[in-house]
């Protein structure tokens, strides 16, 4: 027996962006422990922003140097390939923007442990307490988001999933206003999230039982030789699918989204609706394209049904919503469905795969940026009791505050996919990828892909209805007598809205540079 412990090789340079974020998170915890209360925030904010910006810079350096590895690093645990770097860049930009919004006063509770409505709560609020732990928690969540889509084996992916989710469960419960709703959201998210994690873990075990390994390369290899009808494999496949589809909020696993989006503090909602979605779609792609790529005859028809159901459920249920954040949650469900169209625009060794991948990544980028901007606008429309969530309160906003309402209307048109906004090109890219894949010889789904795209445009038309309804409220209705006030935005919020507006307009007019980025990132596909 050889007792010597071989030290694992870790490519620190390649993993630097992720390590920087985790390192800053740990430092943040130390700041919580040792820095005096009054100084904490002024340490946390620059620390958080600098680490995110630094991580982004490290990603850029890797891309510019062209040093994209062609094999998984860290003993085969993490795959830092083109798509990973692109997704990292997107997540880091999004989280940077969200931290600017979190930095805004008044979103978070003074003392989370105080019972809502109790004397303790009043006391904490009067004392001006605040939970500065928010910053390290966000950094941990972002770190998890970076690891989740880049992991190259199922166990690392599970770790990434949990590191991403646990801080988010907590953050959801920290809203300053309507605290019961917030705590309910946190509880629901935690319970359902724990369930889905269990599904994922159980699926991992089943797949391990089939393949004898959790590495994606190994699973891929096992599938190319083993029996594809092994029940343990099919069971593992479906359990893994449930776990991942839950995270992106695809129907029928979408029930948590509206409740959580509504209850969570809006900056956290923005982070979940953008960063988590990007990370989860990235992970979904990696599992289904890399590990289970040889099984596409089995999972693509199921994914077809899930995509169709998700689009339709999201679009139809959104119509009945009366709360702006719930409506945006259902809209996010519908968009998850559009993304799934892209996810299944692949088969075997199709030449279209790189195009489909690039389309998905482009869609993720433009959709999530617009989402963050939309939620930033939501934080500004306030009632005495907090944000004015109910749609009827938005009536006549266009008369009271035409610029803000105009910007929000533009974001809504981008969600609806009207030409000359970034959302249109996102949708176009995904639809085009699906039709191109379906028309290629050898695609088992063939005409079904066209059917899915037609269903997609029908869902888009339905979705347009509820986006347009908000515009009708804002511009064509008379303002309520005691309408909401428009908060004077902090510099952070202004920056968030400006950045997302700029990208939504800019990409809407000239999408080519962003498409180039996505194409370049997707050209090598995933490391297998």
């Amino acid at each position: 027996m050889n007792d010597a412990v071989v030290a694992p090789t870790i490519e620190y340079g390649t993993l630097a962006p992720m390590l920087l974020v985790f390192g800053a998170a740990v430092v943040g915890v130390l700041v919580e422990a040792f820095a005096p209360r009054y100084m904490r925030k002024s340490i946390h904010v620059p620390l958080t922003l600098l680490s995110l910006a630094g991580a982004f810079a490290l990603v850029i350096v890797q891309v510019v140097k062209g040093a994209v590895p062609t094999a998984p690093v860290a003993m085969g645990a993490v795959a830092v390939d083109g798509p990973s770097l692109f997704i990292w860049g997107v997540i880091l930009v999004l989280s940077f923007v969200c931290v600017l919004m979190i930095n805004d006063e008044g979103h978070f509770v003074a003392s989370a442990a105080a019972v809502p409505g109790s004397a303790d709560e009043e006391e904490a609020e009067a004392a001006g307490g605040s939970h500065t732990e928010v910053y390290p928690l966000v950094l941990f969540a972002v770190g998890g988001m970076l690891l989740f889509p880049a992991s190259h084996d199922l166990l690392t992916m599970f770790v990434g999933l949990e590191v991403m989710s646990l801080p988010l469960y907590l953050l959801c419960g920290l809203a300053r206003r309507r605290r019961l709703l917030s705590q309910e959201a946190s509880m629901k998210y935690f319970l359902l999230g724990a369930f889905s994690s269990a599904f994922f873990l159980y699926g991992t075990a089943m797949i391990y039982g089939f393949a004898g390994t959790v590495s994606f390369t190994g699973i891929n290899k096992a599938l190319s030789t083993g029996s594809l009808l092994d029940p343990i494999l099919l069971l593992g496949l479906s359990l893994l699918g449930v776990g991942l589809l839950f995270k992106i909020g695809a129907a029928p696993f979408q029930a948590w989204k509206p409740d959580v989006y509504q209850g969570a503090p809006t900056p956290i909602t923005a982070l979940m609706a953008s960063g988590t979605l990007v990370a989860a779609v990235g992970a979904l792609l990696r599992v289904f394209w890399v590990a289970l790529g040889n099984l596409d005859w089995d999972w693509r028809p199921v994914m077809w049904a899930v995509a169709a159901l998700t689009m339709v459920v999201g679009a139809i249920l959104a119509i009945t919503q009366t709360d702006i954040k719930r409506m945006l949650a259902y809209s996010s469900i519908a968009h998850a469905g559009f993304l799934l169209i892209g996810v299944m625009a692949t088969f075997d060794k199709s030449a279209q795969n790189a195009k489909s991948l690039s389309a998905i990544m482009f869609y993720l980028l433009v959709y999530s940026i617009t989402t963050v901007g939309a939620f930033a606008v939501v934080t500004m429309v306030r009632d005495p009791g907090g944000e004015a969530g109910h749609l009827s309160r938005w009536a006549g906003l266009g008369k009271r505050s035409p610029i803000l309402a105009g910007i929000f209307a533009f974001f809504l048109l981008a969600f609806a996919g009207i030409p000359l906004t970034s959302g249109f090109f996102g949708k176009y890219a995904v639809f085009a990828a699906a039709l191109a894949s379906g028309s290629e010889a050898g695609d088992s789904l063939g005409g079904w892909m066209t059917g899915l795209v037609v269903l997609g445009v029908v869902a888009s038309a339905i979705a347009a209805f509820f986006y347009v309804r908000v515009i009708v409220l804002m511009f064509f209705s008379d303002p309520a007598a005691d309408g909401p006030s428009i908060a004077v935005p902090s510099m952070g919020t202004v920056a968030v809205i400006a950045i997302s507006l700029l990208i939504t307009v800019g990409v809407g007019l000239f999408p080519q540079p962003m498409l180039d980025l996505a194409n370049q990132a997707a050209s090598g596909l995933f490391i297998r």
Partner: protein
Amino acid sequence: MSPWLPILMAVPVLGAIVVALLPKGSDKLAKQATLLVSLVVLVLTLVMAVQFKTGGPRFQFQAVYDWIPSFGVKFGVGVDGIALVLIALSAVLVPIVVLASWHDADGTQSADGTLITPKRSVKTYFSLLLVLEAMMIGVFASTDIFLFYVFFEAMLIPMYFMIGSYGGAQRSYAAVKFLLYSLFGGLLMLVAVIALYVVAGKGTFMFPELVGVIQDPATQKWLFAGFFIAFAIKAPLWPVHTWLPDAAAQAPAGAAVLLVGVLDKVGTFGMLRFCLELFPDAAKAFTMPIVVLAVISIIYGAIVAIGQTDMKRLIAYTSISHFGFIVMGVFAMSQVSQSGAALYMVNHGFATGALFLAAGFLIARRGSPHIADYGGVQKVTPLLAGFFLIAGLAGLSLPGLSSFVSEFMVMIGTYTSSAFGSGALAVAAIVSALAVILAAVYILWMVQRTLNGPTAEPVKAFKDLNVREIVVLAPLIALIIGFGFFPKPLLDVINPTVTQTLVNVKVDNPAIAEKGAGQ
């Protein structure tokens, strides 16, 4: 590379930005600036139009720039004869609409002091109008199908806000209905556009390169359906016409003119250019069902128009009838019928524009669109009544007025079309001729109830047209009468394009045979 068309589109966009950025309280300046910009566009368009060579290549003033190479999309513009006359139509109508809408956003009160429309942002209205003008020019000028689609959908947004923010009592319902109908059709077209790109496999959306590429009849039929449904909703054809009366009745008169006069023409324009030339076999296969729908539109629109009590709704229904004629002319596929249809698109723009604006002036005086609220107008305001009458007569295609020429051409062209050698087209032409009688009923009955008879009490306080309103209506009436007697300049520009279309559709074309196999 000719800079004409990009300049024509850039001028109104820049104008819109300038108008939108004007400081608060400069309403009058905003109006004047908009008028100036639209007049500049008109002059530029006319200067460009006279340089158009009728015997030259099909697409002139072409300019093609790379836009999105990843998708194979180019910013490709260029005009053929039909696109040119439709751009000219838009350029003529916009300054007229600007003048006609001078006070639309100011807030109006009726004679007895009741508020009809509240005060709204003037500069927003006029900058939307200029954005719309740029997009109208763009949609007709696009030679890249993707670019066409972008304008086709994007132009809904300014019109949506013009109806929704500045329209009548039911404006938000009408605006949403308008947007959703058009958007739905447009999205189906998007699928067809993508599929065309994929199936053609040419890596381009440029129209000239895609003509005749799709050969498989089944594929043609599906793609044809995707395009046709979008255009049928836009045009609008029975049974997907229901949004138009609502939208046109609720829109302010000026916006209604552009909606019915120009935006809807995109539908018939698209049928003629894209449905026919890209998918000729499918177009021939579907001809009879579409002609039947067109005839239903003609008769149905006319009959329903007779029953309307609201002037603007009545005009909207007459337009549905007229669009039926245009669609019938397009799908009858003879030189005469298609030239007539293309000419009809222009003439209908002038005639309906004049009718909507004259009705708008009446409504602005009384505050009510209901025919029953009027009577004896001609005794009080002879000038307004006179213009209204001539516009109405153009609407019923009286000989000597421009719409007569085109309607006659469509009917005779359909009757004599040899494209299918069947008597069915002749029957369609004969049935559609009934609409001429119905048109006399709906127009003359409206004229009788509003202009003639005992003068209603509130009408007595009417003032006749002021100078601005005369300047609005006079050019339209002049064009209606002018092209009624002398349509040749328009036809000279339109005919070669129609010939080219028929060559691409591969229809036996007597006109080509006479001239010796085309141009």
